[in-house]
């Protein structure tokens, strides 16, 4: 087993990895940028290495600096977390070349599955059903147009090198195709350096259900069941659960999807942890969407229901050990739900809310698990995404898990920045969510429904407060001005001019 591992990441996932390393008596090396000097993952690690200025491109994405740090500290392995370099084949290859174990699959598998069209080809060859779409992407919309002539609308355009919802556009009709293609391609070019776009048939009201798989270096593969991640805002998952309510109602789906996922993984020669994502339509047909070659953000719900430590399994497999259990040993018990806690303002279009966390009170008690990367007094930096923590709960049933999550959300108090817990409370009161009738458009539907207007008393109070605020600021400014200069109504007007519009 490794004696020292470097974590090429930050925030909550770096803390998560450090915790398992601690339990396994493996020394941890944190890397940090300027903005992260006081971060929680640095405080908790055994060793720490500064890797550059705050911008990710100058720090967490700098393969050279990360490998330098690993060599300098004598790390035998690197855990890439998720995001950043975790799915960059050249990083895995650079680790391989440097003789440092990369905790994940081979660079070849990352390359193959990193291209969405290549991944589809592998799935098709393995006999796994896929969503009808084009076999390759392009910057030229001709191929995409041909597809729509054959398959009709609605369709979805996607970036070949994509992820996280960027470079995606849903198109309902012929007239919108050209503009949507241009938008998707330019967004993809900016986000991934690759503007190739491909097309798929858009499945109406699909459910996003993914299968966690593991492969070891002895040829063993297992699946750890599914996670339902249908609740998404702008194509980003916000709430995940295990088991999927659909699978709980139709249990044979788990074995069928699990088997399909393992076929795809084996066909890719996969090693270590991976997730195969499927879309499931209204008739419970499932279609391969893509494979993620890293540990996922939402892995805690699988851990809570199976009792396994997925980071520990990753380390053991990377160290050459066989999987310590077989498929028939895997059991699923109870229900887990996870909410992604973001520094964003749900009352103002979910704008990010960076800044200093003045107070922070954490939920606790039975069945509550908090994977947090922040603490009271920490300043949430501008340079990275606004994920602060993941709040997960486990209970004996989905109904109890939802009640438990509502209780835990109520105990989570933060001031100084805005967080999205209020929105999860609203979501967990929605009858469709309570019934498990989920699909990937549900959250956006809920958000575009008209909101109840503010009562007139509140509006009047708001106007009065704003008026008094404006007046008091002008008075203060003009008092200061008059004290310095002889009375002049022009100065008062100037003061008003600059403070009021």
């Amino acid at each position, binding site marked *: 087993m490794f004696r020292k591992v470097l974590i090429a990441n930050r925030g909550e996932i770096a803390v998560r990895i450090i915790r398992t390393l601690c339990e396994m008596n493996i020394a941890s090396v944190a890397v940090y940028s300027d903005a992260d000097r006081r971060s929680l993952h640095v405080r908790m690690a055994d060793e720490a290495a500064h890797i550059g200025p705050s911008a990710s491109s100058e720090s967490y994405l700098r393969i050279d600096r990360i490998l330098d740090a690993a060599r300098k500290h004598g790390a035998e392995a690197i855990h890439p977390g998720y995001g950043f370099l975790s799915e960059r084949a050249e990083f895995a290859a650079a680790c391989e070349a440097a003789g440092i174990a990369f905790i994940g699959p081979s660079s070849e598998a990352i390359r193959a599955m990193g291209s969405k069209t290549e991944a589809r080809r592998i799935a098709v060859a393995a006999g796994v059903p896929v969503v009808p779409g084009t076999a390759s992407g392009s910057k030229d919309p001709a191929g995409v147009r041909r597809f729509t002539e054959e398959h009709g609308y609605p369709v979805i355009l996607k970036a070949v090198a994509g992820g996280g919802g960027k470079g995606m556009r849903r198109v309902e009709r012929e007239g919108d195709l050209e503009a949507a293609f241009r938008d998707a391609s330019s967004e993809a070019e900016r986000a991934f350096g690759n503007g190739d776009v491909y097309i798929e048939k858009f499945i109406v009201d699909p459910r996003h259900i993914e299968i966690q798989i593991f492969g070891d270096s002895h040829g063993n593969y297992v699946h750890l069941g599914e996670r339902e991640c249908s609740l998404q805002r702008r194509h980003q998952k916000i709430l995940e659960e295990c088991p999927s309510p659909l699978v709980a109602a139709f249990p044979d789906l788990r074995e069928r999807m699990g088997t399909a996922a393992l076929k795809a993984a084996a066909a890719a020669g996969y090693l270590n942890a991976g997730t195969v994502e499927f879309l499931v339509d209204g008739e419970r047909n499932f279609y391969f969407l893509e494979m993620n070659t890293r540990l996922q953000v939402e892995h805690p719900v699988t851990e809570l229901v199976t009792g396994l430590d997925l980071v520990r399994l990753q380390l053991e497999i990377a160290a050459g050990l066989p999987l310590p259990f077989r498929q028939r040993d895997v059991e699923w018990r109870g229900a887990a739900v996870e909410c992604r806690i973001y520094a*964003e303002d749900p009352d103002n279009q979910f704008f990010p809310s*960076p800044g200093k966390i003045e107070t922070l009170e954490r939920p606790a008690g039975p069945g509550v698990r908090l994977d947090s990367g922040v603490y009271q007094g920490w300043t949430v930096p501008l340079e990275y995404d606004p994920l602060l923590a993941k709040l997960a709960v486990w209970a004996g049933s989905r109904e109890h898990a939802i009640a438990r999550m509502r209780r835990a959300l109520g105990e989570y108090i933060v001031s100084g920045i805005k967080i999205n817990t209020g929105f999860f409370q609203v979501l967990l009161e929605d009858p469709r969510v309570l019934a498990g009738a989920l699909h990937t458009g549900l959250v956006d539907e809920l958000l575009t429904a008209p909101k109840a207007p503010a009562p007139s008393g509140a*509006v009047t*109070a708001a106007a*009065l407060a704003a008026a008094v*605020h404006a007046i008091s600021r002008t008075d203060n400014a003009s008092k200061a001005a008059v004290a310095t200069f002889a009375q002049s109504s022009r100065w008062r007007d100037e003061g008003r001019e600059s403070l009021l519009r």
Partner: protein
Amino acid sequence: MTLVVDMAGGSLPLELRKEGETWTFRLGSDEEGTAEIEEVEPGVYSVILDGRSYEARIEPGAVRVGGHRIELQVSDPRRRAARSGRRAVEGRFSVVSPMPGKVVRVLVAQGEAVEAGQGIVVVEAMKMQNELKSPRAGCVTSLSAREGATVAAGEVLAVIE
């Protein structure tokens, strides 16, 4: 004094005067009313109106009261009338950046007519792109947002009249 309150639904005059500890006001064509208004923390006001207690927090371009975020701005009509030559109580709304970030796309042109809810500017912050929308229909009379420019919280990016 008289101010103008600009909101998504329209603009209203607000007459205000302070008598002792009490403010007397008339909003639009409503009856005259009174309120107790105290700044209890910087930018936080306790407003007691008709026996009800409200806590109002001032933010760039909006006021937060009782779980609602109300887009609202006040201005001095004399300054606006002098500058723009328009009638004092015409509606005017500033599109303000609520956080520091970078302008990645300007979606409208100066002088363009826009609808309520139409996207005006896309600001990127914390790896997310956020579209700032116009809360009302009108015309873009001023557009200071430039693609690639960094913006501060509260910075005015466009004015819709």
